[in-house]
């Protein structure tokens, strides 16, 4: 980044960045807790996740206000403007991730415990771990101004989609085998969907980070799980 003569402007930018980081940290922690709550059927932990979402909302609000203030006062140019606008977008994606994770928490509080041993939990956990990795890496890429790392996240989104499709089939099989599990399995289906969409937001963030750093849009063929043949890139698993 270019040096500014006015010290406080840099400090303001730094403050925006650190708030994004804070949001990232909270989102990651919420995700871990939500999954933990799911696999141990820990209702009070799930409630904790639901409550925590408010922090993300508040931070997003802070970021938007600060950003607007900075723009109005400093009237920043090209690079800086790009960074500030990018920050606003990232904050809103992180806030959305928080909402999705909160939904997982809500489902945990109403799920029946007796089907918990179902195998597909391992699939959900696998998927959550992948998405958690994506979220962590993309916030890293923002903190470290690393466009390549952002691109990496963007490229690996397809894995999450594939996993979601495979889970969908598996859960369907369970439902057909044992109709009593339908309610439980439906919850899991929605949880998987929530996780997948959190992954989509991580990809959005990756696009924003790439744009902030390079001024260019991420484009070109991306191995989207649904459509691309599997030979295009080795899937990380």
């Amino acid at each position, binding site marked *: 980044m270019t040096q500014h003569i006015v010290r406080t402007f840099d400090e303001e930018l730094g403050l925006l960045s650190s708030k994004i980081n804070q949001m990232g940290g909270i989102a990651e922690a919420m995700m871990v807790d939500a999954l933990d709550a799911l696999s141990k059927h820990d209702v009070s932990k799930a409630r904790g996740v639901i409550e925590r979402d408010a922090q993300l909302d508040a931070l997003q609000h802070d970021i938007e206000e600060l950003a607007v203030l900075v723009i109005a006062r400093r009237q920043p140019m090209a690079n800086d403007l790009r960074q500030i606008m990018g920050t606003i977008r990232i904050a809103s994606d992180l806030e959305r991730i928080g909402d999705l994770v909160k939904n997982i928490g809500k489902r945990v509080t109403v799920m029946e415990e007796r089907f918990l041993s179902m195998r597909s939990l391992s699939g959900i956990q696998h998927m959550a771990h992948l998405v958690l990795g994506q979220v962590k890496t993309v916030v890293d890429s923002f903190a470290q101004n690393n466009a390549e790392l952002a691109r990496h996240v963007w490229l690996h989104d397809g894995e999450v989609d594939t996993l979601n499709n*495979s889970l969908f089939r598996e859960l369907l099989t369970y439902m057909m085998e044992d109709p009593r599990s339908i309610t439980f399995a439906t919850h899991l289906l929605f949880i998987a969907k929530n996780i997948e969409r959190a992954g989509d937001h991580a990809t959005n963030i990756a696009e924003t980070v790439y744009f902030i750093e390079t001024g260019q849009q991420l484009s070109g063929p991306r191995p989207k799980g649904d459509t691309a043949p599997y030979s295009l890139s080795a899937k990380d698993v």
Partner: protein
Amino acid sequence: MPEAGAPLPEAPPSALRSRVVQGKVLRLMALATGLAVLALAHLSSLPWLAHGLALLLLALIYVGWRPALRREEGRLSEAARVLRPDAEFKLSTVLDALGAPTILTDRRGHIVHANAAALKAFPGLKQGHPVTFFIRAPAMLSGLEAVLGNDSEVRFELLDHIPVERSYDVLIRRLGGAPEVGHLAIGTAFAVIFMTETSAAKRIEAMRVDFVANASHELRTPLASILGFVETLQGPARDDATARRTFLGIMETQARRMARLIDDLLSLSKIEMSAHITPSAEIDLVAALRSVVDTLGGLAQDRAVALKLTLPEARSLVAGDRDELLRVFENLIENGIKYGQSGGVVEIGLTPVEDAVIGPALAITVRDFGPGIAAKHLPRLTERFYRADVSESRVMGGTGLGLSIVKHIVTRHRGRLGIASIPGDGATFTVTLPALTPK
């Protein structure tokens, strides 16, 4: 990372010098005591006995004290040398010698110095940047805020999940004697973050639960089948020699599968247990791959599969655990032979690559030309007990744990496992490991 040359707290060399002097004085006093005893012996009524005793005493003092004193003096003068204000000496050198991740921050929470252990545990840490850009856990943020605000110290537990689960007891403390916050320049050490890893204890707990659950679930099926055959042999098939032979054969297969299961589960537990420790021995992948191919030569021959190795001439080094890496290659090549048998060839390659996340890396590929793996199974193969085709895996004597073990080992080595397959045209497994650049 450039060394942060925070000056040591004022070392009082005069105090050290006086300790050395003290040592010398003590020795002189001991000698004097010995001589005094000798003089007394002259005057006593039993001169010869007393003489003897006194000489013995002197000798003892001499022998016993001299090396001890020498050592002490040596240590002291060494310390004096190191602590001399003009000596080339950096606090960072001391911090790097500590085994626990330790980070110095300034009054804004920006990194002044992250020691070697901290860099190993959190490879991104960069001097001059906020700690919380790299360790984002909310606990770290609020802990730092407290110490940078009013508290002189805080303790908390830090949990990290990517790439592997780790837990730390963290202590953040203001440096003693640090002047009022307002007076400290930015970039000057203000607080120290000290982390003690507690992953191992946590893991043991989680592992016990997991292991019992998995083992009991997976062992139940073969066990039920064995019991069924035993009952049949005791009852209806009591006198049927042909049935006995067949059943015993099946029972043996099942029992062996159970044994393999237990082996695999145990090694999985062992690997998971040490997942938080990055292995550090220097391993040559060329030699490792050669040795695995040698061991699997027999199996390949039995199945009429040719193993084709394409390796670089030079040694290709990674930091790793030899046994574990051998297991990775063994599992992948064995799968290639077993499940890709119809293709007749398994190709094994090793190439240096540049990876966006890992950096300079080595990619090991194991490619077969068998039926391949359907897309829907691809991302799930590394889950415990997941098999694309349960009956086929059973026939092959598989446990469904092989790829799970592979994945865990690779993760522990901070590497990545990739699987690509076009159904009908075989499968390619790629292991990417951080390359060890020779120092």
